[in-house]
């Protein structure tokens, strides 16, 4: 039995978990795998609903990963009416092109791919987004719902700096304890390699 469409799942979630806000995010690729964006407050309840619902039974969380979307600047040209002084000194209203720059704040994203081992369908894709990339990088952990997220959320914490609240054992997993940066972020600058540099200088 195939998985219901994302719109259908959204409706089921909203009926099953009162107050949850779900947004369908369309995917332009031929794969046609659309995803559902969840709010933080209801994420755990939605996850439990998806896992336990008799029709959906998404009992298997296959993949958990982080994605970095850095701050970006959108440049657009806007036509504005302005008073411009003419050659004779008199001011007249004219249309002038102006370049406007707007900052779009970035965020970190955690993506969960769910399947059902019982019903043999999937994937349903969940997304959670942090408030920003600096001090608001907290997300609710879904490890209490699917144990398979345990190491993968640790990895997203280690490499992206997403802090999963409610994770039983949130430590670095691939990098060593005491490492300070988050290497998978797009703006990560690797340190100069001492060995190579020494080799050149000597």
């Amino acid at each position, binding site marked *: 039995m195939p998985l219901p469409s994302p719109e259908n799942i959204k409706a089921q979630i909203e009926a099953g978990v009162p107050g949850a806000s779900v947004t369908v995010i369309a*995917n*332009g*690729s*031929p*794969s046609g*795998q659309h995803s559902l964006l969840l709010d933080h407050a209801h994420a755990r309840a939605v996850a439990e609903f998806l896992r336990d619902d008799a029709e959906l039974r998404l*009992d*298997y*969380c*296959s*993949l958990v*990963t982080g*994605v970095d979307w850095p701050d970006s600047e959108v440049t657009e040209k806007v036509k504005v009416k302005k008073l411009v002084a003419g050659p004779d000194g008199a001011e007249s209203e004219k249309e002038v092109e102006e370049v406007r720059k707007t900052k779009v704040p970035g965020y970190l994203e955690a*993506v969960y*791919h769910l399947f059902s*081992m019982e019903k*043999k369908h999937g*994937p349903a*894709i969940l997304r959670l987004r942090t408030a920003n990339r600096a001090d608001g990088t907290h997300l609710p952990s879904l490890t209490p719902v*699917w*144990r*398979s*997220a*345990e*190491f*993968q959320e640790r990895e997203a914490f280690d*490499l992206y700096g997403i802090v999963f609240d409610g994770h039983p054992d949130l430590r*670095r*997993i*691939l*990098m*060593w304890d005491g490492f300070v940066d988050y*290497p*998978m972020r797009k703006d990560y600058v690797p340190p100069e390699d001492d060995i190579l540099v020494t080799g050149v200088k000597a």
Partner: protein
Amino acid sequence: MITDVAELERIAVVNEDGLGDIMEVSMGPHHPSTHGVFRMDVRLEGERVVRLKPVFGYLHRNHEKIAEHGAYLSAIPYTDRLDYLCSMTNNWGYVLAVEKLAGIAVPERAEYIRVIVAELTRFQNHAGLVGFLLQDMGASGTPLMYAFREREKVLDLFESLSGARMMCNYMRFGGVRVDCSPAWLTETRQLVGRLPGFVDEFENLLRANEILMARTQGTGVLPRELAVNAGVTGPMLRASGVNYDIRKVDKYGIYDRFSFRVPMGEHGDVYDRYMMRILEMRESVKILEQALRDIPAGPVMDAKARLRGLRPKAGEAYGRIESPKGELGFYLISDGSGNPYRYRVRPPSMINLTILEDMCLGENIADTVIILGSVDIVLGEVDR
């Protein structure tokens, strides 16, 4: 064996106050049984495990970042180095994800060649795993050498097909890199004809051995519900009695054309996981026989597929296959440029380690070695 978690916690707490005899042992990173650089922080009460934390990352080279910096094509040879025993299936997982992302078709003949090399890979991986597992159990040398003798024959085939024994770098989006020759097919048919005899010999060697049964039966039990919830996949999951094989569920490639069974265990102990590999080798041989019989003539690359300068439309795709170790998936996000914006590997080896502690609690320290051996990990994939 203590199965009550509360009881174990009580022991651990009492002993942290210095009232008992808790010994902390760091097994690894250089321990012959860890199959690479892998460490287990174990707390013992006597010889019984009361806590176990896996520690890894020694081989971490940020594979995902490297792939995000290069073109789509240039990631293929890096995937060889994930699970370096199974480069063919790693290639397949990745090209399948790219094919989904960009909507690329694959010609018939290439699909058959993919199945043939993937099943040969599964066969040699399982043979190797059983060899290593028996080695860990103290059956020194002989089983492992039997397995390696057979594995070498498969690697010879890979070498004559792709130019390399282990780092094959063979598949491309839209097909495979080079066609196989009629002579190669003949050689493969001859080898596949001999494989059932090898499995019989291998199985008879130790299957009913009393020591092996005493050590493996009832050891490291993984209950069905926990296996599903913890995302365990592959032979390990099926040993716990869950019928989930992505070759059957997704029917990717042309797997719907072959008749084969999905072996399943009942107890989820080390013995079931060992038998699962033996049975899967037999099923792989069945698939190989059918694929080698039916392989059609034709091109091996889709004429419209672009390798260099591939720029998929912005979007994302998750592609997954049944690798010998479990569900190997690749998650790709394209922003319309020539290299992936996000490239993520779902490593079955690492995720199957999530429940290592659960399987080892209450067991003897010596058994952690065979429990780990029955998980089947390759550190190149765990650490990436």
